[in-house]
């Protein structure tokens, strides 16, 4: 074991090892499919480079070992070492140069979208939503209401949100940008929301993200006479509540209490 390490050290000096490890991690991250977003790779590489810097500067001997490789040229060293030095001296500036170029060159892609999982809505808007008595308490939900909700869900929502409420409906892959249909079994979606919020989300809320999300607006026809024709789907408010009961029952979560 130590023999192996010593052999490695004589043939691969510290700077080469560091560069190799950083490069290997970068390539590995790049190879993951589906691709990891650039913002996340940047985050990871930030950690990796910080770690590499710490590694090299843990004591003065290491720093010297790192720098001497570039500075202390003895002339009697093996050719392989010399080749490594020149390779690093070429590769490091090239990578930095490419990085700068890549950041500066004009790009025509739309800017990276930061999506808000739950659009923000004022308290005063939510106050106007009245939860019907039969829907307010999860302990008292009637099985027949949930069953009606399930039928409505399968007819209207399952294409996107999936039969199993996992966001994997047949149409889901078509809506990848900026955000795919919500996975209701994930703790980050409806489990975080109150009943009035979900109702608002279903009947009006889509409008805020109208051009950003495939989620249609399920306008209750009597309540919203001048609904947008583009995003108008008919669910009466009764039906909307029943669908909501079902997505909670079906996913096993309870609405957040106020």
């Amino acid at each position, binding site marked *: 074991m130590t023999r192996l390490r010593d052999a490695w050290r004589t043939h691969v000096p510290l700077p080469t090892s560091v560069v190799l490890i950083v490069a290997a991690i970068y390539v590995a991250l790049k190879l*993951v499919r*589906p*691709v*990891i*977003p*650039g*913002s*996340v790779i940047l*985050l*990871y590489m930030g*950690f*990796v480079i*910080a*770690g590499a810097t*710490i*590694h090299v*500067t*843990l*004591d*003065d001997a290491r720093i010297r070992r790192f720098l001497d490789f570039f500075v202390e040229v003895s002339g009697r060293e093996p050719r392989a070492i010399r080749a490594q030095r020149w390779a690093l001296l070429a590769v490091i500036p090239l990578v930095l140069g490419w990085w700068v170029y890549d950041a*500066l*060159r*004009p790009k025509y*892609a*739309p*800017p*990276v*979208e*930061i*999506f*808000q*999982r*739950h*659009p*923000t*809505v*004022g*308290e005063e808007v*939510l106050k106007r939503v009245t939860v019907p008595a039969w829907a307010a308490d999860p302990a008292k939900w009637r099985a027949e209401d949930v069953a009606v909700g399930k039928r409505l869900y399968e007819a209207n929502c399952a294409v996107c949100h999936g039969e199993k409420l996992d*966001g994997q409906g047949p149409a*889901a892959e078509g*809506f*990848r*940008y*900026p*955000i*795919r*249909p919500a*996975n209701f079994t*994930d*703790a*980050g979606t409806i489990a*975080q*929301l*109150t009943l009035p*919020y979900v109702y608002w989300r279903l009947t009006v809320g889509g409008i805020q993200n109208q051009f950003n999300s495939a989620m249609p607006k399920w306008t209750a026809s009597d309540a919203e006479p001048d609904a947008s024709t583009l995003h108008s789907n008919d669910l009466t408010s009764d039906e909307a509540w029943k669908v909501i009961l079902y997505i909670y029952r079906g996913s*096993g979560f309870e609405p*957040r*209490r*106020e």
Partner: protein
Amino acid sequence: MAADSANRSRWRGTLRAACLVASLFCTAAWAQGSDPGDYPTIAGINSRLAVWIAAQLHLMFAAFVLAVPMFAVFIEFLGWRAEKTDRVAARRHDWLAHEMASLLPVAYSLTAITGALLGFLLFTAYPKFMHHLTGVFGPTFIVYPLFFVAETLCLYFWYYGWHRWQGDKKWFHLLLGLALNVFGTIVMFIADAWATYMMTPAGVTEQGALVSLYDAVWNPGWMPLNIHRLVANVTFGALLCSAYAAYRLLLSDDARERALYDWMGYTGNLIALFTMLFLPFAGYYFGFELFAFSATYGVTLMGGVLSWLFIIQAIVIAVLFIGAAYYSWLGLLRIPGSEAQQRWSPVFNVLLIAGFAVWATPHTMAASIEESTGGFHPVLGALGVMAPKMIAVTLVLVVLYASYLLYRRAGRVPTVGWARTGTTVEWGLVGLMAVTIAALGIFGYFAPAHIRIKTSIWQIYVLIGGIAATFFLDQALLRGAKTVAAVRWGTMPRRGQYVLVLLAVVIVWLMGLMGYARSGARLNWHVFGIMEDTSPNAGLPSLGEAALVITLITAIFFALLAVAFAVAGMARGTDERALVELSPQGEPQ
């Protein structure tokens, strides 16, 4: 053409930054649907931005002058206790406490100045809101300055009477320090009442008429914020003291002086690390109360506009911990003969970096069209959920604790008869702790949500239990240990001092970030649900703009702090004779 448009977009970036700064000074002053008298503009300044900057600066200086006396008096007390057993240690502690206190007078003036500025801005730019606040909190507005004056008096007598009340009058000096802390805490609690009333109002009718002042003060958010601020302020103050020590060390060319400041930086960093461990819990407690008060807070902070702040927060906290750990590894270099311990640093480094990379993995990611997988990544998404993050963060804590154990061991040889078995058992326990935590986490990952919550609580139990067991074992093991090499204070590499400065900058920035989150969460309300903000500036800035303002605040804060440091440094001519005696040797307690 292409280069041209790139150029132009670059320009636009610069222009936007310039506009942001310019908007401080001139804003279109027409309000929609509100009486312009409610929001007069002062000299064309963007009042919201001005109040933001003034409030944050005031808060930071206030945090500093509140926190430093807490541990300074404690350190002074330690010195007083040691007077009979170890005179050198006693004097050294007294020196340290005084050194920390020497930063206070200037910081105090800056607190008062920024406070006055904040008050002026609020009363002139938000008269309607301040009228409401005075209506509710009238009596506290009278008591507050009284306590503030009492605090100031205590501080000045405590600091300037330091050398007068030594020896058998020391108890009086300590009592003064205690009174300073009590008054300081009361002052903060009163101000917290105003701030939390704005978030979680109580004791008033829906129209904002006062029903009970008691309820308005003790509103749901009050105690959680009090606790959170107390703990966070100590972390903050200790890191700033460390930065001061680093600054003095880097300037000094006297070995004995360097030794003292090295010890000061080390102590400050230790205090900060210790208090930092409690912060997440205090934060969760505050969050719970907020969410219980209104679901809107939950949505805004966890999935809505402000949720991205917490992803940034995760990264910044990682930087804090990694920096502190790096500093402690560099600290081994000042202990001769600690090569056996130093060998572990690279291993810990890898574990720490990997742990924090997992911890900072976002659950929802920012992606361009080509990269997008719909906000959720099938591979990384698995890392972005709670179970792996809990494993990562608890293992990181194990690594930090193991670093601490190694540091204690450096330069010392246990003399107890069972040293060998003891050491094996100790490290066996640490290893077992790590394995159990990982196993619990993996089990929790595949378990349904309600069990997963339980496994994460168990992970904490294992962590606390393991730390407690090995800690006492270690105490027994090193009892009467032979010190083969004393700590050579002041010989740490200079980069360690730069790390301390970095940590101070990071904590200030973090405090600005979280201050924005706390205040921004109210959205369009002055007083949540009771008094709406109808001013023309009532919107939230974009993430980038918020980050710029926070950075600007950090820069102003350090510019002012640099003045305080320079003044404190000027006032403290070091006494040559005292230094010889003071230079810390061996392990500080």
